[in-house]
């Protein structure tokens, strides 16, 4: 656990000092909202359409972060250093997934209000508690699968390509859950609790893939 915290601290400090990935993700999300405004030719959207647009935007912004997750380790020998140290290798998974999760949270803290301002028709306030729950569960999925896929992709030749093409189909159930869970919330006078079925599916997905990734991650790090 201490190893995971150390690696996590390193990654967060690196990002704070360098500030490359996170601003890019945020900027990308906001520009995407503008593109959607023009692409859909709508001033406001609501309901399932809004949920879909938000989910897709967050997904592609997350892809930017995922592609960069292990690049430093790969290029500066971080993997070898980690392998040599007498630590539990899955700590790297925990650290990276937590880092990615935190990046996504920061992204959403900025992007969701921006979405409420730029594109969303109904007011964001009443939807917020339910939306936070759905997005949090979705972020866990994105973080876990993103870390797993990034670790696989960083060792291949077609680095940036392999990550998304493997990750996107794997993430589909979680994305369905996020979009369909958020849909009923983003309606004027909609409910403030997300539909239970989708929360359950997201939670099930998170648990299964978190456990699976934890079990399998060791094999990716072997020399």
């Amino acid at each position, binding site marked *: 656990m201490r190893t995971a915290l150390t690696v996590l601290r390193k990654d967060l400090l690196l990002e704070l000092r360098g500030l490359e990935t996170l601003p890019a993700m945020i900027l990308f999300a906001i520009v995407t909202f503008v593109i959607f405004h023009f692409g859909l030719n709508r001033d406001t959207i609501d309901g399932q359409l809004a949920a879909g647009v938000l989910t897709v935007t967050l997904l592609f912004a997350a892809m930017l972060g995922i592609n960069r997750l292990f690049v430093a380790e790969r290029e500066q020998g971080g993997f070898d250093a980690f392998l040599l140290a007498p630590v539990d290798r899955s700590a790297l998974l925990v650290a990276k997934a937590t880092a990615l999760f935190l990046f996504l949270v920061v992204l959403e803290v900025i992007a969701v209000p921006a979405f409420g301002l730029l594109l969303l028709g109904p007011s964001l306030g009443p939807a917020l508690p339910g939306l936070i729950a759905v997005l949090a569960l979705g972020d866990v999925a994105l973080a876990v699968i993103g870390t797993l896929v990034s670790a*696989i992709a960083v*060792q291949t030749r077609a680095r940036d390509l392999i990550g998304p093409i*493997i990750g996107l*189909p794997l993430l589909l*159930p979680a994305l369905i859950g996020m979009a369909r869970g958020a849909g009923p919330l983003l309606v004027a006078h909609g409910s403030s609790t997300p539909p239970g079925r989708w929360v359950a*599916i997201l939670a099930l997905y998170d648990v299964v893939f978190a456990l699976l990734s934890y079990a*399998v991650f060791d094999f990716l790090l072997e020399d």
Partner: protein
Amino acid sequence: MTTYGRGLRGLSLAAAATITLALALVFFYAPLDADQGFIQKIFYIHVPLAITALCGFVFGGVLGAMYLRTGDRKWDIRSYVAIHMALIFGVATLLTGTIWAKASWGHWWVWSDPTLTSFLIVMLLFATYQPLRFSIEDPERQSRYASVFAVVAGAFVPLNFIAVRAAQAYVHPRVLTLAGGNLPGSMRLTFLVSLVGVVLLYVTLWKYEMAAKSTRMQVRALRRALLGEDSVAPLKRSAAPS
């Protein structure tokens, strides 16, 4: 050293006989469906192909887990062949599925069909298996990463079906979930025979492919043993384990 050719003839004969029997049952025994009519006959080839493909993917995941556990490359080859065969059966599923969709609902593709959609997602995922393998040059690492992928993707299959089914309207004829009740006896028998036939076909082709690979490897090893290391041309970079 396992010989994959042993028992292959008996197996392929069994597969051929069962499939022939199934075809006979489909066209001469099974009654016409009340609402879909003759079109429904596609069900007897489409659904067994789908089930076999999905089980093949999960089987590939299990074999990949065996490789991770033992490190013995023969498990990786088995996993690769299982997934390869399942992909072929999956393509057949999608093709027969779209034909069925066009015949029943007038469109070549319908989103409102949860089974076809889930299947498309699974195929999109497994379509990345060979590009992934191809992009890793070191053979041991290729086997390891491919096995990790096989395990994760194999676990993904059931989850994906749950999620998509929950998401979509029940337009697809839900014959299987109602399989306990709704399928009349004669149809159920025909379906089961078809299913057994297609599964036997899968196992036969899997064994066949393994025998072919094993033979090729033996020839190379023999050449290396008799004529020395440099008489064997090095294999090109490929997605298949060798």
